[in-house]
């Protein structure tokens, strides 16, 4: 199978096909890779309840097959989970996961030759706590009653256990501050073409809607992964129709334009009082370091410039920790939004980091995690 080929596929296992989202292709592909010893381990989400799931590394095929099906509200990041472990692993990944994994690969924490990245189309994810609050305030239903969730024609639909459907448009939700996480709203990586194989339900037409997955092969490794699943008898493929391919491209375009609009809305230039703005946003920082711990592009470890040159006792007007992080992330921030998620005092860190990263990443035309290109600093050659 060659790079650039597109297929529509589904799982041959009835049970997985029914339970998993969009035909269970990804789940079957991961299970097949594990069974045929293409990889030693697979990362899957283990469901706790409708709103929470923990990522686990497993070598058990049954555990992989049982993992199928989870809600949108699980924004955990896989890059740091598999870093520094020297695993031969296959894992599903959203656009930002893929970027994080590639960045860890550049920092020699992950061996990308041994990592099969199954990219998933992603229109955005939701924060579990915000989702619970949204259900109570906007939908007027108890979070415990939720049985399923769906996005259709710009509406977010929750299904309760008694079979009723509750729908509100995403625009309305986001105006009120609910809905997708902020970093997802202005994200423009909707189809992860930087992964080995990009999967998603966009582009599936006709009878297959909801029962099949559209796949695009992005690398030789991705082709190997899919071929292995076919050989093992786990998945079935067919060629997509032209309408489907066009539809997928159209959805991608629409989502990206929406992302750009949000970007213009969130990053309003501040002409006066920028320093006051940053000082005000950061004044509640308690130096817990959680933003650094979760950051998928940071691989400095415990001893790093941002922590070693920072002291709580300094009478400085800005914390050295944040200044160094602002600088280090201006060529590395992938905008995954994890730092905002974990901040115990709710500093909108991703928004602040992106303020510094956006102009310089555009100016130097360097997008971290999009390919194996090294940061511009490392491109200085000896004979120049």
């Amino acid at each position: 199978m060659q790079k650039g080929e597109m297929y529509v596929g589904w799982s041959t296992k009835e049970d997985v096909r029914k339970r998993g989202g969009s035909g269970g292709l990804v789940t079957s592909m991961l299970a097949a890779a594990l069974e045929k010893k293409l990889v030693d381990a697979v990362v899957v989400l283990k469901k706790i309840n409708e709103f929470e799931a923990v990522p686990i590394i497993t070598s058990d095929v049954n555990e992989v097959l049982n993992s199928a099906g989870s809600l949108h509200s699980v924004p955990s990041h896989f890059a740091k989970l598999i870093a520094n472990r020297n695993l031969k692993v296959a894992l599903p990944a959203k656009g930002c996961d893929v970027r994080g994994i590639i960045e860890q690969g550049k920092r020699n924490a992950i061996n990308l030759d041994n990592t099969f990245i199954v990219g998933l189309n992603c229109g955005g994810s939701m924060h579990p706590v915000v989702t619970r609050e949204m259900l109570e305030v906007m939908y007027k239903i108890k979070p415990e009653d939720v049985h399923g969730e769906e996005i259709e024609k710009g509406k977010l639909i929750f299904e309760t256990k008694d079979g009723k459907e509750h729908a509100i448009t995403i625009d309305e939700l986001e105006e009120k501050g609910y809905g997708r996480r902020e970093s997802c709203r202005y994200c423009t990586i909707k189809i992860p073409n930087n992964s080995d194989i990009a999967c998603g339900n966009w582009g599936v037409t006709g009878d297959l809607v909801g029962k099949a997955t559209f796949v695009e092969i992005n690398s030789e490794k991705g082709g190997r992964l899919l071929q292995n699943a076919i050989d093992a008898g786990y998945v079935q493929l067919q060629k997509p129709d032209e309408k489907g391919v066009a539809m997928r491209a159209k959805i991608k375009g629409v989502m990206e334009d929406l992302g750009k609009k949000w970007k213009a809305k969130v990053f309003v230039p501040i002409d006066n009082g920028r320093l006051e703005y940053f000082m005000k946003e950061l004044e509640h920082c308690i130096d817990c370091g959680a933003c650094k711990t979760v950051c998928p592009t940071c691989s400095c470890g415990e001893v790093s410039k941002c922590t070693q040159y920072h002291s709580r006792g300094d009478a400085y007007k800005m914390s050295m920790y944040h200044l160094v992080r602002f600088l280090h992330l201006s060529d590395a921030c992938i905008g995954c939004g994890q730092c905002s998620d974990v901040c115990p005092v709710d500093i909108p860190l991703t928004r602040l980091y992106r303020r510094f990263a956006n102009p310089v990443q555009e100016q130097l035309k360097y997008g971290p995690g999009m390919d194996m290109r090294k940061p511009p600093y490392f491109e200085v050659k000896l004979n120049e």
Partner: protein
Amino acid sequence: MSAEAVAATAAKTNGWEPKIVAFCCNWCSYGGADSAGMGRFQQPASARIIRVMCSGRIDPLHVFNAFLEGADAVLVTGCHIGDCHYVNGNDKTKIKYKYLENVVHELGIEKERLQLNWISASEGEKFANFIRDVTEQIKKLGPSPLKPEGVA
């Protein structure tokens, strides 16, 4: 700026000398500073020179620290491009400076407060003029907004 604001700034800056931290590389700009003295070029006493072996050694962290400790301006100087004693140290400075400049500017610090200049060991006059120009500019701007309480 309104008339009152101008008066206020003037009162604040009356007799005030800015503190400028100038990072100079051992092989070129430090030599430039030397020949500025040797050639008796007049320059204000506002600059504190920190000698580093190469401008590539200047970590953005040093610049942040200078600002946080109360510097009103920070100058990054080195050899002309192509003249680096360590082959490509100043090429690296150039890229690093781009990121540093972006952070400092986005933070809301005036762009005059952080400047980059290439000065060779023979350009004493250029060095003196540079320090004089920056001092003038900073005197107009007043003390740095990042200066800690109680530091002059």
